[in-house]
């Protein structure tokens, strides 16, 4: 696959690169090393800049006001946008705007008025609640949260865990079992307001990632009106599955981005740090670490772009998305680990972003479907058969 950049892509990437290096990275010197939010005055100033550049709301479909940039170019941009301390989970601290929850674009007109448009205007926040204590890798079988019809309403009972942003959200996209006999065809997707009686955030789940944390939720006879069913009854799993495949490409791109920065830092340090009278960059042990980094990086970058290009071309991309997610998350973890080794003691400190990337990348091998599940997806696609 040919990835020669167009003139327009080169211009866009140069603009984003300069934005990250001149506007975002310098602010991090004054922020806590684990911060994922900017002070409001900086955020407002930078959002105004991205709007002026025409890059705000990158992932919003063009018909809803997005800039209409294809996924391949957005993937290239994501490589750049992740190249700072908070870049893995908060690329550019969100000043390029988000797309909200992709499932809302499939909502009916009434639901779009109540949920999608307020999200796009920045008035409401939502969460995506699929995973349960009984498991997240096999949601079709693991979902035990139930929704039972009661007149025109549904009554939801159950619990969810590892749900990001739920404690600060106004509503959630919640998956519940509506037919226990039908397996993956017995799951329905609901829009649940967080002020509905019976909804509770039990606690925050503390992990290696201190910011953008997740929460544990309880649904105790939450009454949801029938007009809050998103899509068709018993067709919720298809909504979840589509989102999971599509999200793997930007998920991989973020991994590639921080790894590119870690490699840049490792090379720069190796060229300035001396041991026994000569630079680290002259030592074969260090050279090989940098070479192995380069191989991991180029592999992950190419596979991520391949997945994006197939999606842009309207071709099936589930296999490619699974491969790029696992290669990028595993490769980036190795790159950052080697960069820390090259930096020695400094690599372990909060003075540098490497330790944050190291912690957060560990989550990337589990999040959005563990890498073992990605391998299962690829196995099914190349060998055939179903999961067992």
């Amino acid at each position: 696959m040919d990835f020669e950049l167009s003139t327009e892509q080169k211009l866009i990437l140069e603009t984003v690169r300069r934005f990250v290096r001149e506007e975002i990275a310098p602010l991090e010197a004054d922020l806590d090393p684990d911060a994922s939010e900017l002070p409001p005055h900086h955020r407002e100033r930078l959002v105004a800049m991205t709007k002026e550049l025409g890059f705000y709301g990158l992932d919003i479909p063009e018909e809803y006001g997005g800039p209409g940039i294809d996924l391949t170019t957005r993937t290239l941009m994501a490589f750049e946008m992740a190249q700072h301390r908070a870049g893995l989970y908060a690329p550019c601290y969100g000043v390029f705007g988000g797309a909200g929850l992709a499932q809302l674009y499939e909502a009916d007109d009434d639901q779009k008025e109540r949920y999608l448009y307020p999200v796009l205007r920045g008035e409401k926040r939502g969460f995506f609640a699929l995973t349960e204590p009984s498991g997240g890798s096999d949601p079709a079988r693991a979902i035990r949260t139930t929704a039972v019809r009661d007149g025109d309403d549904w009554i939801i009972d159950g619990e969810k865990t590892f749900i990001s942003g739920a404690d600060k959200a106004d509503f959630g996209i919640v998956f519940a079992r509506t037919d226990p006999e039908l397996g993956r065809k017995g799951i329905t997707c609901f829009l649940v307001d967080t002020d509905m009686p019976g909804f509770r955030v039990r606690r925050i789940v503390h992990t290696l990632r201190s910011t953008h944390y997740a929460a544990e939720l309880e649904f105790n006879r939450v009454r949801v009106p029938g007009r809050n069913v998103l899509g068709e009854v018993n067709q919720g799993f298809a909504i979840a599955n589509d989102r999971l495949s599509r999200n793997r490409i930007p998920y991989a791109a973020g991994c590639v981005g921080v790894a590119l920065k870690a490699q840049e830092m490792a090379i720069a340090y190796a060229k300035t740090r001396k041991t026994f009278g000569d630079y680290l960059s002259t030592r074969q042990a260090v050279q090989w670490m940098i070479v192995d980094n380069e191989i991991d990086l180029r592999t992950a970058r190419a596979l991520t772009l391949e997945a994006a290009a197939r999606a842009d071309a309207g071709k099936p991309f589930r296999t490619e998305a699974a491969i790029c997610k696992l290669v990028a998350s595993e490769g980036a973890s190795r790159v950052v680990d080697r960069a820390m080794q090259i930096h020695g003691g400094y690599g372990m400190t909060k003075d540098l972003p490497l330790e944050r990337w190291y912690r957060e990348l560990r989550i990337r091998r589990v999040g959005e479907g563990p890498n073992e599940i990605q391998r299962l997806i690829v196995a099914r696609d190349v060998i055939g058969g179903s999961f067992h």
Partner: protein
Amino acid sequence: MTGIRLTKPWRDLDEVEVALLPGQLGVFEIADEEGSTLELGFAGGHSRFGLRSAIPDAAARHEQAARFRYEVTMQYWSRFEELLAVHVADHGEVPAGNADRGDRRIGRIAAPGS
């Protein structure tokens, strides 16, 4: 809810107790004589001496500060947000020392006993 509260023992805000503070990262609570919370905070990655410097720095902002308690944790940011949310669930508002959060939301955690 009890499992997510800060339940460490209160300590008097004096030189002896401050000198005993660890230089590690973590979260803390500053209170007046009656135990009313004045500020919740954390010793983050930029703190000079971790909790040992962050707690007296925060206490200096409150004339009524008389006691403190703390918890060592590397997950200081999410633990801090959790403690703020618990405080709001208990009291309906953030402590006075945490009022300046701009437009950043406070998380909602179920009120105790609900």
